[in-house]
């Protein structure tokens, strides 16, 4: 969920009304937003960088508002204020595309070279706009928010905004060899080639994150005006020549993209939000979409009432007169509306979810437990009754935890590997419960001895027979940590567990244990557990190297076995 930070007083000014924090929180909630935090710039800096850095920072009160991820029309102050005003029964603006006074619209030519790198481009012009410092800041901020969200960090769409009066159309969107592109980029004093720029921005804390998008392409995208002036090299940087300022009157907005649908959405957002500041408000360049809707969600309500509710949500509606049909007009700001159910949702929201009468469905069903979970639940209780304490460890761990630390080789583990772990703790899904229990002991060495722990949980093993190539396996693991190894204690727990599972001690027809070799265990101190002749697990005294690698100092015995054979 994106968070939008707006200045409280500016917002109230735009709303034409002042609220207390509580009132505003309630209003946000009714409208479907969440007032996340009330702060100031000074508070923020002081929290992040310390008090000394904060002196001199602004004391203006900021509202941080959580916005639903698909509501791109609420990513700036203008959009939030407009939405809330309409919700409070102000008439929703109707956006219009107009032709320039001169008659001919601007043209953007897209050449075939772009197909290999970034094939789509759309553009629009906001005419006779008036910026103030706040409006300008909001304009820049919206671009950034869109870049981070719907544009997927500029991979899908990149936005460029330009002072139309500094350049001359028609414009050309093409792709060229990096060495052949040279221009003065935004806020630089000299010209660079695209190759030089890519190395220059390697160290730029902001721009370096976008370089990978085009870095290894043979040609880079670029937009020229009719005089060969570079407007931008999307998705990296704009040219300095056409940069907008507070004095800019006519704004040329271009969106280049790998996804045309998204490009249109982004362009719609940019122009609908800021067309408010044009001399003729809410005018720009795109079409509106209309769609009929049937089967209203609130069947007890009249179609008129529902049409009224929808209008409150910026969806102009009126009953068609035919049955309970309502004609709904979807503004370009509402790209999230793709099905009648989205419209119903808005109606329900305007109605207030909490005002919907609660009913109990007559769905008759009989409950069943999942047998594996039922067995787990029952066994847990009795293992605790046997004096062992339950641990709960992560299903992810480092590769080292299941290999070196247990004196095992990687190929023995059949582990599922994680492609993108942020830290070593999340390299693999665990293949055994033992490392988690040993780490739990290490973190609780101050506790009185002996430590007797158990866990019944899933490990993950590769399995070719499954559609995803891996499966869970439910395990029981227990450890005993004391000044002496206590093999007899762990063995006793195995006997008790078998008793609980109704397996008698008998070779062949019941369970038995027999000596086994396992590098995790001390030589001669490991046994394999067999149930009806099938191996289900192992128990024994841990190898001293294992004990030390888990930062433990005393002898330790352990049991680990599969539970699924007992179903």
């Amino acid at each position, binding site marked *: 969920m994106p968070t939008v930070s707006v200045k409280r007083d500016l917002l109230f000014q735009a709303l034409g009304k002042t609220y207390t924090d509580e009132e505003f929180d309630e209003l946000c909630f009714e409208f479907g937003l969440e007032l996340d935090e009330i702060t100031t710039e000074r508070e923020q800096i002081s929290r992040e960088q310390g008090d000394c850095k904060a002196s001199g920072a602004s004391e203006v009160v900021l509202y941080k508002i959580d916005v639903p991820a698909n509501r791109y029309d609420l990513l700036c102050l203008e959009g939030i204020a407009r939405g809330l005003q309409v919700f409070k029964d102000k008439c929703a603006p109707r956006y219009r595309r107009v032709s320039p006074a001169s008659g001919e619209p601007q043209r953007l030519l897209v050449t075939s070279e772009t197909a290999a790198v970034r094939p789509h481009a759309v553009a629009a012009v906001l005419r006779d706009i008036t910026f103030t410092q706040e409006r300008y800041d909001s304009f820049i901020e919206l671009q950034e928010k869109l870049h981070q969200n719907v544009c997927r960090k500029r991979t899908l769409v990149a936005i460029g905004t330009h002072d139309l009066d500094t350049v001359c159309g028609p414009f050309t969107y093409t792709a060229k060899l990096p060495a052949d592109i040279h221009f003065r980029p935004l806020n630089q004093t000299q010209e660079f080639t695209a190759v030089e720029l890519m190395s220059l921005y390697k160290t730029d804390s902001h721009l370096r994150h976008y370089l990978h998008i085009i870095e290894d392409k043979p040609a880079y995208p670029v937009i020229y005006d009719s005089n060969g002036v570079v407007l931008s090299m999307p998705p990296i940087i704009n040219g300095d020549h056409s940069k907008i300022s507070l004095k800019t009157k006519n704004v040329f907005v271009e969106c280049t993209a790998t996804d045309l649908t998204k490009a249109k959405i982004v362009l719609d957002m940019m122009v609908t939000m800021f067309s408010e500041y044009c001399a003729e408000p809410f005018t720009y360049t795109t079409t509106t979409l209309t769609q009929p809707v049937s089967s209203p969600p609130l069947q007890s309500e009249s179609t008129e009432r529902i049409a009224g509710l929808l209008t409150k949500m910026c969806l102009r509606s009126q009953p068609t007169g035919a049955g309970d049909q309502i004609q709904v007009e979807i503004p370009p700001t509402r790209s999230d509306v793709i099905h009648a159910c989205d419209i119903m949702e808005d109606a329900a929201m305007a109605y207030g*979810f909490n005002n919907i009468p609660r009913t109990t469905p007559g769905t008759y069903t*009989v409950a069943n437990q999942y047998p594996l979970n039922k067995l787990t639940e029952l066994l847990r209780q009795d293992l605790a009754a046997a004096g062992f304490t339950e641990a709960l460890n992560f299903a992810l761990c480092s590769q080292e935890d299941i290999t070196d630390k247990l004196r095992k080789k990687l190929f023995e583990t059949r582990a599922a590997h*994680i492609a993108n772990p942020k830290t070593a703790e999340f390299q693999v899904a665990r293949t055994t419960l033992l490392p988690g229990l040993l780490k739990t002991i290490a973190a609780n060495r101050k506790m009185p001895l002996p*430590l007797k722990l158990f866990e019944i949980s899933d490990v993950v093993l590769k399995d070719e027979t499954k559609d995803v190539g891996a499966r869970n396996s439910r395990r029981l693991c227990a450890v005993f940590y004391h000044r002496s190894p206590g093999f007899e204690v762990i063995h006793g727990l195995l006997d008790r567990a078998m008793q609980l599972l109704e397996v008698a001690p008998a070779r062949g027809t019941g369970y038995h244990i027999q000596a086994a070799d396992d590098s995790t265990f001390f030589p001669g101190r490991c046994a394999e557990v067999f149930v009806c002749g099938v191996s289900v697990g192992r128990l024994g005294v841990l190898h001293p190297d294992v004990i030390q690698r888990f930062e433990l100092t005393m002898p330790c015995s352990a049991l680990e076995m599969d539970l699924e054979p007992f179903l």
Partner: protein
Amino acid sequence: MFAVLHLFLPVDSVIYGRLPCIPASVARLVGKSGPNWQHCSVSSTSFPVSSLRMDTLLRRVEEAEDGVDSLQVAGSLGLDHQAVVGAVKSLIALGEVISADLRSSKHWELTEEGKEIAEQGSHEARVFGSIPDEGLAQSELMKLSFGKVGFSKAMSNKWIKVDKTHEGGARVFRAVVDQVREKLLQVQGGAEKLEEKEKSELKKRKLLSEVTVKSYWISKGSSFSTSITKQETELTTEMIASGSWKEKTFKPYNFEALGVAPDSGHLHPLLKVRTQFRQIFLEMGFSEMPTNNFVESSFWNFDSLFQPQQHPARDQHDTFFISDPAQAKGFPEEYLERVRKVHSEGGYGSQGYKYDWKIEEAQKNLLRTHTTAVSARMLYKLAQQEEFKPVKYFSIDRVFRNETLDATHLAEFHQIEGVVADRGLTLGDLMGILHQFFNKLGPYHTRSHTPCCPSKYQFLNLSIGLKKWVELGNSGVFRPEMLLPMGLPEDVTVIAWGLSLERPTMIKYGINNIRELVGHKVNLQMVYDSPICRLDS
């Protein structure tokens, strides 16, 4: 006994009435015959104290009208007061046999020098006394041990006079009578007639000292008896068999102390809460879904739920992808095609997302980000049945997010999920079921919230006891773009809700840092100490 007593009363702070030296024979006679247990610690003390039989003391108390003073008892028996005090303490420990009130009194006593003077007179008096009526040569006088001091004092008191002109050298004669001796003899005689001024003068001369004496006023207690028995500490098998417990008295227990902790195992608090949530679902007729598959394909985790392939949740920064085994296979082909179509072209009344849907994205294996992946598999399975039957499903299991970790977020947590599929379910039904579910957790308030993920509505819930609205989870109605491609009948609505298990557990058990609850850094003491889980109390 005394050793114990000394812990409370340091010897030098209180002097128990000192008595004339007792003949050893008497001490032996009275002391040695006493019960041994009473003296076990006496032998180790540094000063020998004669002991006293407790019954002797009790007889004294019995004879007295309304009690006796321990000092008097000691005096009349010719014992050290300490011995009486020992007996008193032993009797107190037996319960209500006697009552003993500590009292203190003050009196004056001579110092050693004072006693010498009291016995033999002051130095000046002895000088005075050694002078016969006919006088004494001064040189003779100075030869006496007390001569020098006594002479000058006697001179300044003008008790004596010196005739220096006497033939044969200076000669000393008496002039007055000895007052100090008479005063000291008065004190020793017990009569305290001296005036304060005189006493303080004698005290200043270190001839008198003021002594505080503590003694007990002993009288009959509520269960007074002259014959006493030792108190037993515990009831024994023997006592029960012989019935001897009937005659015995037992030492009182200290009910202020804690008992001994039982040697027990413990269940993990998070899983105790899991058990309760399972119970709630079972009570409401929900069946448990098989969620034991952490590795899931993007197809079931995202695509089948109508989550577009460019959705931020499918980003490397939010989801753990699996590099080995990297790809899933064996999707139901016709269904896969319907999913592709609804994403890229729309259908079922939807415009779709209008993008190029790629099978490669759907094949990517990951660690499931929600248990809804399992719900999708279950709903698909449901749609394949010949005749639709309504279902209520639940699951509580682990899900994984490649998120930044903090005090309340971990890379894995437990998701609680409830799903109801039936014909013609409404939003009111969803609100109604949620109400019933949350009511089982105790009194609550909800307030609803906007959609966030494309397939669901979202709700916020307030857990009572918190000042702030706390988002507990979300809920909603599954989109037609998700259900219809599965093959479910058009009039079937599926409502669902989900929340994390960790959040309510942390609220329930007052835990602020999730690492103390989940994972190996768990605080085992917290596990040992955690109470049973009743969610509705």
